[in-house]
């Protein structure tokens, strides 16, 4: 008796790195189901506000619904408060939205990234039900276990438990951070079957958002 499974893992990996005045967000563009590839050109990154970007991997049906819900809430906020949502405000909103469905969760592993109200880079990493933390860098998705150790080695942040609070952002320059992200994706693509095809890199800084794509291994 086959029961209907409401979830599916469409694979893929997302990464974000926060710098002093920039933020790098990257995700591969492969959409898979089982051992098949459905698309080599599917973006996992959504721009929610001018300095705030959401990258999610997991079940794309839930991810699309989540992006729609957040975009609508952002518009309502803009109308009620006469200003655009800041990244930390969106972070709290995303957490509440995920926890609202605590007993039928969004199968989405999210990384929210952008610039905070002071213009510093910020990365917020989530689990499926909304537990979140502001960190200096994060990877989520099928290749995250392959990427996090490398990021830890290159970008090790001070512990968030230390007092006085230390800055979590990396001292690396923007181009160094982008190179690191490209290297880390190239490594994960070698061993993770769900990661590959093309890498979409979004860099957010004070002058705006810019998008770059590079090819990854297609096998």
């Amino acid at each position: 008796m086959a029961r209907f499974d409401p979830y599916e893992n469409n694979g893929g990996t997302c990464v974000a790195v926060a710098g002093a005045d920039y933020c790098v967000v990257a995700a591969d563009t492969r959409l898979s189901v089982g051992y098949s590839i459905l698309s080599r050109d599917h973006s996992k990154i959504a721009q929610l506000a001018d300095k705030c970007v959401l990258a999610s991997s997991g079940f794309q049906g839930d991810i699309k619904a989540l992006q729609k819900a957040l975009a609508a809430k952002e518009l309502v906020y803009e109308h009620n408060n006469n200003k655009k949502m800041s990244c930390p405000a969106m972070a709290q909103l995303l957490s509440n939205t995920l926890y609202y469905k605590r007993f039928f969760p969004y199968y989405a592993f999210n990384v929210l990234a952008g610039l905070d109200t002071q213009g510093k880079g910020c990365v917020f990493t989530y689990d499926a039900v909304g537990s979140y933390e502001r960190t200096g860098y994060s990877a989520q998705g099928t290749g995250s276990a392959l990427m996090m150790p490398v990021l830890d080695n290159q970008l090790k942040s001070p512990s968030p438990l230390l007092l006085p609070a230390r800055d979590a952002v990396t001292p690396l320059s923007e181009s160094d951070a982008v190179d690191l992200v490209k290297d880390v994706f190239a490594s994960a693509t070698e061993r993770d079957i769900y990661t590959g095809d093309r890498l979409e890199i979004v860099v957010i800084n004070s002058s705006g958002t810019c998008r770059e794509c590079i090819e990854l291994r297609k096998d």
Partner: protein
Amino acid sequence: MADRALPRTAALACVLRFNFLGKQKRREERERGAEDGVRPRVNTFSPEGRLFQVEYAIEAIKLGSTAIGLKTKDGVVLAVEKRVTSPLLEPSSVEKIMEIDEHIGCAMSGLIADARTLVEHAFRVETQNHRFSYGEPMTRESSTQAICDLALRFGEGDEESMSRPFGVSLLIAGHDENGPSLYYTDPSGTFWQCNAKAIGSGSEGADSSLQEQYNKELTLQEAETIALSILKQVMEEKVTPNNVDIAKVAPKYHLYTPAEVEAVIARL
């Protein structure tokens, strides 16, 4: 079966006809009332285009104790007359300035019980909901709008609405990323941003004194003195730390202790 059904149907018909007649009668009454210029239902317009209940509510506030607010570049000062009617009354229990959130305070005049409801249900709940949803303080204009949204929810028929408007005027002192601000709300649900305003029984005299004495370069200290001296002019009793309340939002809300009020009185 048939003979039992007949009286039942007849009874049903009577009830329906009675209801129908009742509706007819009420409709006629309503139309008649509107034509005579007799006071219409609570939340409908008069033929001249006025909402009487709202206007009467505004009148009610003119009986309330005076409250004064002044905005300076460093922050906003609120001062109220507590109107302690008996020496047996515990002055600290008379609360006419309330904290809404860390960065917002409000002074009230009119029916204090209505003000409590408005502040607790609309204001405090809304600002805390905003903090819960967005992890940040609510902007002062949105929070004032939240209060005013509630002001016109009165009328008959709907169980959730009040039977009459709120008979209270508020002076809302706030501070957000755009700096300090003072808003004034009234029972019509409108709000205005002001540099200085007085509400309550002494408001006319106080407003004209404020116009003479206010300027944009005032310091917080000068504003305190001006507010209290104007309050002294319009109050019947002598000003003591027990019958006035002062608060400031600069940038956080702070209610003055009796000792601090005493210090301001000494400067008068």
